């Protein structure tokens, strides 16, 4: 019998609430020592990633999140039978326990920021032209002209990065005050200035939201996307490198579910 895995929780008790997962099948907890793996039985492989299936998965995880600390697993994680599941739990027990303790009472929030990259670049070029320092004089030879052009582009790109760093630093100062952990990615695209996830203690959720509102109102040229609370998809850290799962499977199991969040987001917008 194949088991569809939703997450690992900090309880070995059965789930009291009736929760229905993929294919409308009820979910239950398979305990291992003092923790559990929440699963539902599945009769056939999932046919592709559909918004409906992702939402079914996410809804189960979020319902569990309301009552337990959960290590959410990646959408479409299927384990071949109870024995394999228990072996996996045994192999990763210490990692699971460490993560459950670290993530206890914490929620994940996502913040994305778009900046006007073209305008920023335009201003940089203008400023560089105004205060131009002649590092290179072009004497007309093709190779020197080539270097001069490259160097000008290099200076613009460097200043662009520096400006991005400054913006992010200021924003992060506000958010970090209320976050236990964070992961920031700068300029994933030229316009996507910041793609960040913050891990926030439940009792600091309102402070974190207020910090966001404060930042949001500070600069009308920036566009913001705030999402959450999510289960801590991006903060599960597995240290064990060997065991039942191969490294690639291990990475897959708890890989961040950006697509899942995107789809959930698209539905909620």
């Amino acid at each position, binding site marked *: 019998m194949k088991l569809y895995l939703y997450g690992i929780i900090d309880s070995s008790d059965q789930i009291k609430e009736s929760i229905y997962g993929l294919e409308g099948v009820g979910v239950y907890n398979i305990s291992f020592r003092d923790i559990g793996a929440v699963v539902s039985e599945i009769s056939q492989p999932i046919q592709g990633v559909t918004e409906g299936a992702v939402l079914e998965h996410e809804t189960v995880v*979020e319902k569990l999140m309301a009552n337990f600390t959960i290590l959410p697993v990646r959408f479409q994680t299927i384990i071949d039978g109870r024995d394999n599941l228990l072996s996996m739990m045994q192999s990763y027990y210490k990692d699971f326990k460490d993560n459950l303790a670290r993530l206890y009472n914490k929620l994940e929030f996502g913040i994305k920021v778009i900046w006007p990259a073209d305008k920023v670049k335009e201003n940089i070029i203008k400023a560089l032209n105004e205060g131009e320092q002649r590092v290179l004089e072009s004497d007309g*030879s*093709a190779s020197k002209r080539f270097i001069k052009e490259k*160097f000008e582009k*290099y200076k613009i790109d460097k200043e662009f990065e520096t400006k991005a760093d400054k913006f992010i630093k200021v924003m992060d100062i506000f958010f970090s005050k209320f976050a236990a952990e964070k992961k920031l990615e700068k300029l994933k695209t030229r316009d996507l200035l910041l793609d960040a996830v913050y891990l926030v203690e439940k009792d600091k959720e309102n402070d974190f939201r207020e910090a966001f509102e404060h930042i949001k109102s500070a600069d009308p040229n920036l*566009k913001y*996307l705030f999402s959450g609370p999510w289960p801590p998809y991006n903060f599960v850290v597995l240290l064990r490198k060997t065991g039942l799962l191969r490294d690639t499977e291990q990475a897959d199991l708890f890989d961040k579910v950006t697509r899942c969040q995107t789809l959930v987001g698209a539905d909620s917008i």
Partner: protein
Amino acid sequence: MIANGIVETDSAEEFIEEIEKSQDVLPKKINANPQTVEKGLAKLVLTLIELIRKLLEKQAMRRVEAGSLSDEQIENMGETLMKLESKMEELKQIFGLKDEELNLNLGPLGDLM
């Protein structure tokens, strides 16, 4: 069915576009078959060469910025980088590859192209 996590933004379309762009930097699967395997391999090799070329170029720009190069060295460096760039253009044309096809997401370092 709606999950509890919410997404708040005034610019949904723009964010969807940027997220898609950031996820589509590399193809999910390498399309290798007897007809395209040569192009596929060329793409992989040229991407790596392009990465090395860009690193060389960046290092050169740092040295220019530091002012540690003589006129002659700048001249030589310019000629070398120019030839490298033109050779890459030639190879891209031979294999029918465009700049954006040689992109590589270098994580925190950003995109190659």
